[in-house]
């Protein structure tokens, strides 16, 4: 019998799609994924939840609403509490199935297994909750999960890049930081990747540094961070700072994201220490691209100047670089004032 399972193309889908699609397909279940994010989906999502909710969750609700009249037997909405030891995802992920049931969206029956690896790595309950509607054979489930995990590992391995692109002098290395669902959803981030590539930049993401590298770099931070995405971002920043070449960092965060409000601040402090230019882009329902393009171009220009003219007095982030008279040197013309703050 052909079962169909729906997966909303939002939030954790962007991190775990190889795992889940392979797993369900191995069980003989057809996987239906909602379409790419568009304006209708975003609007629907915005209408379905309270205003204070962050953008990715709104997008998720929009995607869940696309399954209302579709011929799907189940909707897959796992309660992701933690995917590694001593680290959580986000409080909103923990309440996601409950929030969906409480909303006015009509949806197919939910499959809502609990993923909790805070204390132990055991996944028996999770697997059984996932697969019990489709099959009762434990060996088959175990085999499917094994294959799926293999697939996920291959996928993550493919993403990793060992070196910065310093062979091509024209290209700039930009680390694009953000949660996976903001990075890879090109409607939400307004095609930031394409825009950066048009500006001759090489784009890096946290996933391009191996987990081992990120975790080992994270030891420099005095306290262990208890959010998986926070760990990814901070670890990636530390790793990125180690590599040679001219570089800049762009942080994509969603409006009102509780995790980013703290992690971004910690990242800025580390980048300012190293004098690496930094741009913080905050995403919300706003879809005008003009402002973003201007900011991006200005940011890229700053890095170019610093590289081509060795002008280190261009502010990397948030500090005032003028001298006491308020003169800011342009293209090497220095102020003769002795107390200038751009001596470095």
């Amino acid at each position: 019998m052909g079962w169909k399972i729906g997966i909303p193309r939002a939030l954790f889908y962007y991190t775990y799609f190889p795992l889940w699609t392979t797993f369900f397909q191995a069980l003989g279940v057809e996987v239906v994924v909602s379409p790419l994010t568009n304006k209708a989906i975003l609007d629907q999502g915005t209408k379905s939840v309270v205003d204070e909710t962050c953008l990715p969750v709104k997008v998720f609700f929009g995607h869940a609403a696309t399954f209302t009249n579709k011929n799907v037997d189940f909707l897959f909405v796992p309660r992701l509490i933690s995917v590694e030891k001593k680290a959580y995802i986000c409080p909103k992920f923990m309440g996601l199935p409950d929030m969906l049931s409480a909303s006015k969206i009509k949806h197919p029956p939910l499959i809502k297994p609990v993923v909790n690896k805070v204390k132990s790595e055991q996944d028996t309950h999770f697997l059984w909750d996932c697969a019990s509607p489709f099959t009762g054979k434990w060996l088959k489930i175990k085999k499917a999960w094994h294959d799926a995990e293999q697939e996920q590992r291959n996928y993550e391995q493919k993403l990793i890049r060992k070196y910065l692109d310093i062979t091509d002098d024209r290209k700039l290395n930009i680390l694009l930081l953000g949660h996976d669902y903001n990075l890879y959803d090109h409607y939400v981030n307004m095609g930031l990747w394409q825009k950066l590539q048009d500006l001759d930049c090489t784009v890096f993401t946290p996933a391009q540094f191996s987990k081992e590298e990120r975790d080992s770099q994270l030891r420099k931070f005095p306290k262990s961070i208890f959010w998986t995405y926070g760990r990814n971002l901070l670890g990636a920043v530390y790793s990125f700072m180690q590599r040679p070449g001219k570089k800049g960092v762009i942080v994509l965060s969603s409006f009102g994201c509780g995790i980013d409000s703290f992690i971004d601040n910690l990242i800025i402090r580390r980048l300012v220490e190293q004098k690496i230019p930094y741009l913080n882009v905050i995403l919300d329902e706003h879809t005008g691209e003009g402002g973003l393009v201007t900011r991006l171009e200005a940011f890229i220009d700053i890095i170019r100047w610093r590289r081509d003219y060795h002008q280190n007095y261009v502010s990397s982030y948030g500090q005032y670089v003028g001298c006491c008279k308020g003169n800011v040197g342009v293209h090497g013309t220095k102020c003769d004032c002795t107390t200038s703050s751009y001596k470095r």
Partner: protein
Amino acid sequence: MGLNVIVPPRPTKDSLSLGVQHSPEFACIPLKICIGNLIEANQLGADTFLMVGGCGPCRFGLYGQLMKEIFQDLGINYHTLIIEPPDTGYWQFVTRVKKVIGPVSWWKIIQGIQLGYKKAVIVDKLEKYVQEIRPREFNKGTADKIFNNALQMIDQTQNLDELEEVFCLTKEKLWHIPQDESKDVLKIGLVGEIYTLLEPFASLEIEKKLGKMGAYVHRSLYLSDWVKEHLLTTRFFKLKGNDYRSYASPFLNHFVGGHGIESIGASVAFAQEGYNGIVQVAPLTCMPEIVAHNIFPQVSDKYGIPVLNIYVDEQTGETGLETRLEAFIELLEAKRKKVDRKITIC
């Protein structure tokens, strides 16, 4: 315990704006107030601040670390002592605490903890009396005056006997306030995030305002309950406070960090006890409370209990809040008169 403790002044608008200047934009209001307050304490001569850590998922766990870095950047001289919860074993925790407090005997520590806990219990008991009296008193504000006076006295007490004396005295005083016994007051349950519930400044004294408008307010969280449940409960002996969590199912089936699940559970419990309305108070961008907020419409539908959600932020204008509360109370009155469960306000 031989340590010189400087109690920071009560948070004011100045401390808030000082905190807002130096903390991240989207951080929640408790952090902003804490930072402002600590800077003020530094000006009073404090050189070390003590902060508890945590291990998530709420942001509170990173407060200490972030504060340390912010103070470093500001050039403020502050030693930081962060007490992390015992995640790797009790012995490590004990040694850390010992390092903080220095050479003091354990007997003294236990006595200190006992006195502190008793104080919290007594303040909460008195506060519950005040909450009952506030809507009924003829002369508005009398109970609050007596209560504030009692707080100062409790602060100065040194042992349990003195504490008991203050408690009895204040109770007597409160009982003698002339009250309108026949008045049928509205019952409102106040739920939400712990800091905004317990710190009157953060919530713009919402509790007092509701009381003056003639509503009996009961909070889902009291300090002594929290201390009992979180600090004095160990693996060896358990003290249970009000267990609101069990009420949250089927609306919210899992812990979401902070006090999200307590908010939902408490409102279900209040609804079953026949309260007239629920007011939720939370800091803007508080993640657990947003989850709760999303689930409230369902609770409201099922039990026919109106919910008012209030997010507090840097905004300190009180008129807007007062108007909202007045409107909410008038709607509750109208609903009670009609006894029509179909009117939902949310």
